[in-house]
């Protein structure tokens, strides 16, 4: 990244656009809508605002699908799980939902996850509150330059302590986070294969090859491949917590890792604003994980 300051603000703008999309569509959710309808609405909304490529196209999960029940347990098609794709499941009052989208705009990508419930849902509220601990834990450990697998294992332990299941383990390669790279800037529309943007996948593949040589992995998980110090760059971090297979929630946003530090790209994101409203953020030092 040649001009870091400029790039960062561009990444932040795309992340904000993606969150704006999720918030707008979430505000208009109605009982009876299907996951496919909602995912399509998100796609149209973003295309209308200049998005011309994807890391992945929008996903929407409703009800117990937010907890990914049964997604873990066997190696789904070599780490690729078709259960991600939006289905005809219909939204009902009180149901949890997750909207997840990763748009690219002129070569700049973001990857966000937005959780909520239609009306009130005490379990979603609780998980959303608890997700703050994960955001603090991950940032704190990365700043301490702890190996990424250690950070992911600490997330697993926090899940066990809080009574959740780490559902991000149902993602391809069980990732807690993955790298996001800058693509060649242009305004052409680019190809996606099975909802995933070809250029972003290629960049990830290049990272994997390079990482293999240099001893790091662009796929951050609890596994041995992530047993290395934090690699500088942008990481889309996505802790996803499930409770008893009935309800789940996550956030996803970009973490900037530099040679000697780290910070969240943007603190003005919906889940942080929610914690502020509930008096949980900023976290007092004594309470930090």
């Amino acid at each position, binding site marked *: 990244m040649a001009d870091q300051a400029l790039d960062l603000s561009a990444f932040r703008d795309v992340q904000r656009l993606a969150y704006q999309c999720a918030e707008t569509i979430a505000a208009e959710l109605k009982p009876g809508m299907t996951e496919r309808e909602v995912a399509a609405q998100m796609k149209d909304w973003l295309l209308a605002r200049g998005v011309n490529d994807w890391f992945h196209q929008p996903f929407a999960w409703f009800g117990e699908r937010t907890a990914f029940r049964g997604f873990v*347990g066997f190696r789904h098609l070599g780490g690729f799980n078709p259960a991600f794709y939006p289905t005809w499941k219909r939204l009902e009052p009180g149901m949890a939902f997750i909207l997840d989208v990763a748009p690219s705009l002129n070569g700049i990508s973001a990857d966000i996850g937005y959780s909520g419930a239609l009306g009130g849902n*005490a*379990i979603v509220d*609780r998980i959303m509150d608890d997700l703050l601990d994960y955001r603090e834990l991950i940032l704190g450990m990365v700043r301490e330059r702890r190996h990424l697998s250690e950070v992911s294992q600490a997330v697993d332990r926090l899940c*066990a*302590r*809080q*009574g959740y299941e780490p559902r991000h383990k149902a993602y391809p390669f069980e990732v807690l986070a993955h790298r996001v790279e800058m693509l060649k800037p242009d305004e052409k529309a680019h190809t996606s294969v099975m909802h995933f943007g070809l250029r972003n996948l290629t960049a990830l593949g290049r990272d994997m090859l390079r990482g293999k040589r240099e001893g790091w992995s662009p796929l951050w998980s609890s596994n041995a491949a992530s047993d290395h110090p934090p690699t500088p760059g942008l990481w889309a971090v996505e802790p996803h917590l499930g*409770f*008893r297979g009935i309800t789940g929630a996550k956030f996803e946003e970009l973490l900037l890792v530099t040679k000697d530090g780290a910070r969240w790209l943007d603190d003005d994101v919906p889940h942080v604003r929610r914690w502020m409203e509930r008096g949980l953020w900023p976290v007092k030092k004594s309470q930090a994980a």
Partner: protein
Amino acid sequence: MAKRKTGTSRAEAPMPQPRTLRRGDVELAVYEWPTTAESAPVVLLVHGYPDSASVWRHVAPLLAGHCRVVAYDVRGAGHSTHPNHTAAYALEELVADMAAVVDDISPDAKVHLVAHDWGSIQGWEAVTTQPLAARIASYTCFSGPSLDHAGYWIAQRLRHASPAALSQLGRQLAHSWYVGAFHFPGVFPTMWKAGLDHAWPQLLAKLERVQTEASETQRADGVDGIKLYRANFRQRLSSPSERYTNVPVQLLWPRHDHFMVPEIWDDLPRWVSRLWRRDVDAGHWLQLSHPQLVADYVTEFVHFIETGKESAGLKRAGHRAAAMGKPDAGKLVVITGAGSGIGRETALLYAERGAEVVAVDVDEAAAQRTAELAELLGGMAWARAADVGSTKDMETLATWVRKELGTPDIVVNNAGIGMAGSVLDTSVADWEKILHVNLWGVIHGSRLFAQQMVASKNHGHIVNVSSGLAFFPSPMTPAYATTKAAVRMLTECLRAELGGKGIGVSAVYPGVVNTGIVSRTRFVGTTDVEQQRRQSKVQRLYERRNLKPEAVAAAIVDAVEHDRPEVLVGVETVGIRTLSRLSPALWRRLARSNIGM
């Protein structure tokens, strides 16, 4: 908590002089107990069949300190008119009588209704019929459902026609045999006249273990009250109407009511918007067997309705009502080691099934977390810190549970720690540590709570969590396996001892279950580095096996539901158990092999 006494005889409590209230051609005998609290809330007591207002004579004086207490003889009972025509006993007439009494005793303020049996059937009619419902501040009822609700209950089960639904229906019909018998002309009236009236107190003493005195109107009450059934049952049960109420209802449910199955109340939340439910270890005539308890519950409910201050007991009663219809609604479950793994899963499963859960763990924060999660699932839960191996901690826990919540219905002794390494490497301190938690914990939990269950004549259940390793001798985990084998024998002995007392005892034997136990397992005779290496190696084995704590929680629920002596969880446990029986020689040879640890 009120003292619960059964079967004690007490001195005759006098009835106040009745005054007469006339409605149409019926005269009602109305009794008011003297009170110093003239401006206090009014409580109206309505009796059932074959009783008269005198059935309240023990409860009424206990209430009179806090309330104005009024009772009356329903038409066809006691000193009220006994109309001849069956039609005169229709619910519409009975409720009109009640409205007349309410207007007479409390023209302005609402009254708190307390009713039993047939009085309770009238009470339901009253709280679902305007304008009378608007005159009722609260309704405490026991042992009598609304006939219309019962009509829907029966129709729904007939429509559903599942074996479970039909069995509920069949059992309720078996409990209600007398209702059918009452419709045969002549039979019961003749029995009352032939001396059943004189035998009634002895009959009650024998069958229901309650002491009552012969009443001078018993024969007439018995004969004429049959008309209540004849005038109402057929029509209400066959073509019920939808009856809803917003009046706050406190349901007292005597667990050993011979005339009612508990499921009869399952659909009540559909009809009642504000409901509390209290379970009592008693039979049908709660006001005779437990007058103090009834008085306490009524006083507490009246106080809450008048002031809005909900006591802890009523909060529990509210939760019990909300859980109605769930399989373990109204049950109290104590679980040790509930801060993680199998214990936490079991606590959450029971919470989902409507039970009230006491989560016990040596780590208070972990227990607290489990209780919070249980509440998220709509359960009611408490967290208690205790070292299960400590006599003092466990005695404190058992006393607290009994005093605050009552005798538990289910106790799961689950807390345990792991230990690996040979017998020779295991130090005395290590042995003491693991015996303290794994064996003493189960001894204390079994002993203390079994004592409570025996004392309260409760039909309780104790589940001890052993391990598949209880069947597997090996040089790898001798200390752990020894404690778990001891738990096995303790459980079998306890089952032999308590089986005849109606208390179930089960052992559950989990296999390689992926919980946090490995990270807390001590590998004796190793360095720290070696310990870590072995821990992560074993952890990987556990992860590959991926048997979930949920499976054990489900096995525990299954053990209780079917009173199973033992439940094996996981193919590895079944395999090793089978081998130990089929070929002890091969089993011992396997024991000598060191499976990579």
